[in-house]
């Protein structure tokens, strides 16, 4: 595997991370009520993405910069 092949792979990884972020954002925007309920009941919420479930702890939400 040469440097160019690795570079291509890196680009795919960048895309994968961006996709994960986009998925999380889209899920939050479209499931606000469910997430709020889950956060209030359990103190955390889980977001399903193609890379697996991602946890949102209550502290992250409450510490978000205004």
């Amino acid at each position, binding site marked *: *595997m040469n*440097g160019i092949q*690795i*570079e291509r*792979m*890196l680009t795919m*990884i*960048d895309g*994968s*991370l961006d996709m*994960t*972020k986009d998925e*999380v*954002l889209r899920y*939050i*925007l479209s499931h*606000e009520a469910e*997430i*709020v309920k889950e*956060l*209030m009941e359990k103190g955390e919420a889980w977001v399903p*993405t193609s*890379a*697996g479930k*991602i*946890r*949102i*702890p209550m502290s*992250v*939400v*409450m*510490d*978000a*910069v*205004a």
Partner: protein
Amino acid sequence: MLALVISLLVALYILGPDLMSRWILGFVVPSKFRVPNKSEELTRAVVWSVGPFLLSYWICRKFGVIPPLGGVDMIERLFSGLYSEEIFKMDRAGFFTTMHEFIRVNRSLLAFMYSFVIVGSIILDFVIIRYGVWRHRLRNWPRMRALLAVLVLPRVSEWHVLLSGMLLADTRAQVWVDILTKSDALYKGRLNDRMLGADGSLINITIEGVERFKRQQYLDERKVNGDARREDFWRRVEGRVFVIMAAEISSINIRHTYTSVEPWGELEDMNDALNRLREKIRAAQATSSNNHPDHN
């Protein structure tokens, strides 16, 4: 004697700088992950020696650290004396004078050369450590990004590049793998470690938090229940770490993702979304408090 001196010079000027750089490189990239072939090693050795040598020679000459080499006569006298014992006996005093000068010149050159190699290697170490970040920052500068890749990637094993977080701009991201074995078992978990052989081949992969997919049960369930969800057929494997030998691996799916400490706040859009959630939670908490004043 001549062959011995030439071998020594080759070792000091070509092989030494490369060995020095490898030793320093080993502080940030474990040696087991670096598996260059012979031509790569030779190329790297020459590259590591030519630049520092030319720079050292220029500085030494510029600031008068070394005198002019004395022309062809000096070199002829020195190498003739090394080559032939008879010539050495004929001009013994001249030989040692020349040899003394030769050693002094080389000592100065080597001192500067190795200093440059050490400084360059340390700088390269920092670049490797921050490779993902630099790569991300240069995303709008493709040529600079390609140059960075040429500088860094050939020095690091491909497996290390793939199975480590060095590619990622955010070091908090983690590497997860889905491994399909030749016996048709599918495992997933967070990458813990990997071991490579001397030839660069993968020996094994260690993952943690492992789950195994019950594929046959899933397929059986799908026959009677079309709504069966794939997520329900993952079973946790007991034990903290799980080692899979490379010989058993059919394919690996590598995923890079964030943990629960994802840099949520660093994303402007995400931050807005989280702020909206926070306001809703506060509103819900306030409503709850008003409905149950006794709880205050």
